[in-house]
C-alpha cells in the first residue's frame, strides 16, 4: 500500500486520542467491491484536526461511521483491525459501552442539520436529553449548561433559542445547534461528516472559524470529512486522502497541499478551480456585439401578497402566525447580456438567481417587467407562444441524476429537441451521435440508458441535449455543484470549449466564486432578488465595491492557499 511509505511523521504522533489500525469494513456480497474501507491506519492527536478527503464512494464516511459503530449492520460490518480510543478497542466494545462513548467521548456532526434534528422537539430539549442520559445533574444545572453551550457556539439570544424548534432557525443556526450538541459533554473527539457542505459560503466560513476556535478553547480533537480542498486548506493540521477505500496519502497539511506525492492527490488539488479571474477575451475586432438578452425591471413574487391574513387571523390578531408574507424572489432586476459573452449570476441560496433563470427560460412566469431575447418579448408568453423561441435558449440542469428520463435511451433524449423543431428523426439521431462525440462520449452511448452512466457523463448528456436545438443562449443552473471535484473541472472546461466553438452566449448560475471565475468574464452578484454589483470578473475580484461582494470573496474557503503565486487573485479582507 502506498500509504505506508510517507506518513512516518504521522504514525509516530506523540499523544494520540484515536488510533485506527488496519481497519477494514466489509460491504455486502452484491456491492461492486468487497471492502468499503481497506486496512486503513490513522491517528488523531489531542487537539488536532485531521481532514479526511475523498470523492463520493471513497469510503471516507463509512470509515468515520465505523468509529462510532453506526454502520447499517449486518450489511456493512467491521471485518478487521482495531479502533483505539485512548487504548480501548471500540471495534470490540459491547453495546452498553458504545452508548456511553457516543455523545460522551466521541460525538458526531452530520451534513444536513435539518434532517439530523427532530422537528417535533425544541432544540434546547434535544440537547438537554443528551445531558439527561449521560449525567445525573438537576434540571436547572442542565439548563444552565445548555445555555452556556449555546453562548459558546455564538447563537444569538440563547435563552430564546433554547425554546425554538428546528424550523424556526436558519441553516447556519441549525448547524451551530448541532455543534453545540456535539460539544455539550466536552468529548475527546468530534467527528464532522461534511458539516458545511449544505451551507452557504458565508455561513460555511463562519462555521469553520467557530469550529477552529472551539477546538482551541476546549482542546478537542477533530476528525473532519470533506471533499473540498479549500476547506482542508482552511482548517486541517494533517490530511488523509482516500480513494476506493484505501488511504493513498497521509501527512501534514502544508506538505500534502504544497507537495502532493500521490498522482491522485495531485489530480484532486489541480481540479480545484483557481480563484484567478479569467482574462478578458481579446477585444473583438469585428463589431461591438449587440445585446442578445435584455431584462428590464423584472419581478417575480412568491406567496400571497394581496390577500393578507385570513378572516380568523384578522378576528383574533396575535393567534397563529398566519401565512408567510410574500417574498420578492426577483425584485426589479435589470440585466443586459451581449452576444457571445459569458456571465455568471452569483448569489447564495434565496438570492433569486435560479428564479431569474427560470423566468428567462419560461419555466416560471414573471409578474412584471420585460425580458427580450434577441428582440422578442418573453414575459407574458403562453406555453404555445414560447414554442418557436425554444430553439434560442436552452438550459443545463443542476442534478444529472434527476434531469434525464430513466426510461428513455440517451440518443432519444438528445434527439427529441431537434425533432420537435421539425428535423426528421433520422437526421436528428445522426446529430445526436455527433453531439455525443463533441461532449466527449462514445457515439454508441446513444443506444444505452441514463443509469449506465456516471454523474459527470450524465451531465455531458444534459449538455448535448441542450445543444441539440442549436440555441443562442445557454443557461447553466449550477451544472457542477452535484458532481465530484475531479469531474467538475472537466465539465466546466467542456462548457467553455463548446461555448467558443458554437459562439454561445452563456448565463451561468452558481454559488461558487471559483467556478464563476473559471468560466465567466463577467459577474453579476445577486442578493435577496436584487443585483448588488456587476462588472468584469477581474475588476470585481480586484476591487469589490459592495460589502456583500467583499464578504462573499472573503468567505471562499482556502483562498489564502490558492493566492500564493497568483497576485491577481483577490486579497482576503483587511489586507
Amino acid at each position, binding site marked *: 500500500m502506498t500509504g505506508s511509505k510517507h506518513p512516518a511523521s504521522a504514525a509516530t504522533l506523540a499523544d494520540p486520542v484515536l488510533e485506527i489500525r488496519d481497519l477494514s469494513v466489509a460491504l455486502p456480497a452484491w456491492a461492486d467491491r468487497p471492502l468499503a474501507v481497506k486496512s486503513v491506519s490513522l491517528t488523531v492527536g489531542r487537539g488536532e484536526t485531521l481532514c479526511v478527503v475523498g470523492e463520493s464512494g471513497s469510503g471516507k464516511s463509512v470509515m468515520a461511521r465505523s468509529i462510532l459503530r453506526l454502520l447499517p449492520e449486518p450489511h456493512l460490518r467491521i471485518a478487521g483491525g482495531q479502533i483505539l480510543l485512548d487504548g480501548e478497542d471500540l471495534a470490540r466494545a459491547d453495546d452498553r459501552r458504545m452508548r456511553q462513548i457516543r455523545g460522551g467521548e466521541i460525538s458526531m456532526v452530520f451534513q444536513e442539520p435539518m434532517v439530523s434534528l427532530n422537528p417535533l422537539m425544541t432544540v434546547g430539549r434535544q440537547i438537554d436529553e443528551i445531558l439527561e442520559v449521560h449525567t445525573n445533574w438537576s434540571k436547572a444545572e442542565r439548563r444552565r449548561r445548555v445555555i452556556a453551550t449555546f453562548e459558546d457556539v455564538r447563537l444569538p439570544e440563547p435563552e430564546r433559542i433554547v425554546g425554538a424548534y428546528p424550523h424556526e432557525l436558519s441553516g447556519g443556526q441549525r448547524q451551530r445547534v448541532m455543534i453545540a450538541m456535539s460539544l455539550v459533554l466536552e468529548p475527546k473527539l468530534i467527528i464532522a461528516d461534511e458539516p458545511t457542505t449544505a451551507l452557504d459560503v458565508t455561513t460555511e466560513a463562519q462555521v469553520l472559524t467557530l469550529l477552529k476556535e472551539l477546538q482551541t478553547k476546549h482542546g478537542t480533537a477533530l476528525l473532519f470529512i470533506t471533499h473540498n480542498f479549500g476547506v482542508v486548506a482552511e482548517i486541517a493540521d494533517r490530511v488523509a486522502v482516500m480513494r476506493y477505500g484505501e488511504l493513498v496519502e497521509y501527512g501534514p497539511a502544508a506538505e500534502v497541499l504544497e507537495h502532493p506525492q500521490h498522482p491522485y492527490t495531485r489530480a484532486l488539488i489541480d481540479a480545484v478551480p483557481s480563484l484567478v479571474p479569467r482574462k478578458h477575451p481579446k477585444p473583438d475586432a469585428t463589431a461591438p456585439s449587440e445585446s442578445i438578452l435584455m431584462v428590464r425591471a423584472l419581478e417575480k413574487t412568491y406567496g400571497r401578497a394581496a390577500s393578507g391574513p385570513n378572516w380568523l387571523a384578522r378576528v383574533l390578531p396575535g393567534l397563529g402566525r398566519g401565512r408567510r408574507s410574500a417574498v420578492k424572489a426577483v425584485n426589479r432586476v435589470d440585466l443586459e447580456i451581449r452576444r457571445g459573452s459569458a456571465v455568471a449570476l452569483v448569489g447564495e441560496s434565496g438570492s433569486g438567481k435560479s428564479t431569474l433563470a427560470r423566468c428567462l427560460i419560461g419555466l416560471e412566469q414573471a409578474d412584471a417587467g420585460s425580458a427580450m431575447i434577441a428582440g422578442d418579448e418573453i414575459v407574458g408568453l403562453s406555453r404555445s407562444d*414560447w414554442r418557436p423561441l425554444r430553439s434560442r435558449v436552452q438550459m443545463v440542469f443542476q442534478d444529472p441524476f434527476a434531469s*434525464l428520463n430513466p426510461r428513455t435511451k440517451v440518443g432519444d433524449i438528445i434527439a*427529441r429537441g431537434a425533432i420537435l423543431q421539425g428535423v426528421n428523426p433520422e437526421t436528428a439521431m445522426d446529430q445526436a451521435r455527433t453531439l455525443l462525440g463533441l461532449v466527449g462520449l462514445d457515439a454508441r452511448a446513444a443506444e444505452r440508458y441514463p443509469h449506465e452512466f456516471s454523474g459527470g457523463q450524465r451531465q455531458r448528456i444534459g449538455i448535448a441535449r441542450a445543444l441539440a436545438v442549436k440555441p443562442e443562449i445557454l443557461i447553466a443552473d449550477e451544472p457542477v455543484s452535484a458532481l465530484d471535484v475531479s469531474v467538475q473541472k472537466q465539465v466546466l472546461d467542456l462548457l467553455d470549449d463548446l461555448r467558443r466553438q458554437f459562439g454561445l452566449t452563456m448565463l451561468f448560475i452558481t454559488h461558487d466564486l471559483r467556478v464563476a471565475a473559471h468560466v465567466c468574464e463577467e459577474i453579476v452578484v445577486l442578493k435577496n432578488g436584487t443585483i448588488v454589483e456587476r462588472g468584469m470578473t477581474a475588476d470585481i475580484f480586484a476591487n469589490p465595491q459592495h460589502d456583500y461582494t467583499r464578504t462573499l470573496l472573503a468567505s471562499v474557503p482556502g483562498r489564502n492557499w490558492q493566492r500564493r503565486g497568483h497576485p491577481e487573485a483577490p486579497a482576503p479582507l483587511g489586507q
Partner: protein
Amino acid sequence: MSTSFWIRFLGNPRVLLGLIWLGLVVIGALAAPLIAPVDPFAITGKPFVRPMDGFLFGTDSLGRSVWAGLVHGARTTLLIAVIATLVAVAFGGMLGALSGFYGGLVDNLLMRITEFFQTIPSFIFAILLVAVLSPSATSVVVAIATVSWPPIARIVRAEVMSLRSREFIQAAVTLGERDFVILFRQILPNALSPLIVTGSLLVATAILTESALSFLGLGAPNFMSWGFMIGAGRSFLRDAWWLVAIPGIAILLTVLSINLVGEGLNDALNPRLRTP
C-alpha cells in the same frame, strides 16, 4: 423489466407460492370445459353426495357437481374481477394524471369528485348500483369499477405531482414538448410501478366484492360463481359443509395469493422500501 427485477421477484418464496396457486386457478378457469365438461347448473347426480364419493367435491342440494361449479365459477369471478380492475385503473389513472399534472382548479375539481365517491361506503354503493342497473355481468363490472377507482386516482395523482417537478420534465418543457406527450411519454411510464402494485392488489378486492354481491344474489345471473355457491349452500352448512367450505377456501387462497404476489411486486419494484 430488468433481469435483477425478475431475480428479486421470483426469488421470493411467497411470490412463488402465490404464483403457483394463481396459475392453477387460471388454468382451471381456462380449461373449464375440458376438465369439467358439464353445465355447472345441470343436475348430474343425487343431492348431497359427499366429496370423493363419485364426485371429486361432492354435489349440492340439487345434485349439481361442486367441482364443475368451482372451475366454471373461477372463470366468472376472475373475468369480472380483472375487467373491473382494468376499468378502474384506466379511469382512475386518467383522472389522477390530469389532476396531478395540471394542479390548481382542475385538481381541485377532480379531487372533490373523487372524495365524493370515497365518502360513500363502497360495498353499499356497489349493491345500490347493481340493484339500480339490474343484476347482469356488465352491471357487476360497472359497480366494482365505480367503487374502486378513487384510490388509484389518488396514487397516480401523488406520483405525477412528484414527477412533474423533476428536472427531466422541466427539460422536456424547455424543449417545447406538448403537455400530452410529456404526460404520456415521460411521466406515466415512470409512475407505472406503484400503479401495477395497487392494480394487482385491487384484483383481490374485486374478487371479494364480486363474491359478496353474488352471495347476496346480486351477481351475474346464469353465471356460476364462487360467491353464488356459498350463498346457495349456506342453509345446509350443518349437513353439507363442503358446499360452503370448498368455494370459501378457493376465495381465501386466491385473494391471499394475489396479495402475496402484489407485495412481492412492490418489494421487487421498490427494493429500497423492502421490510426484512
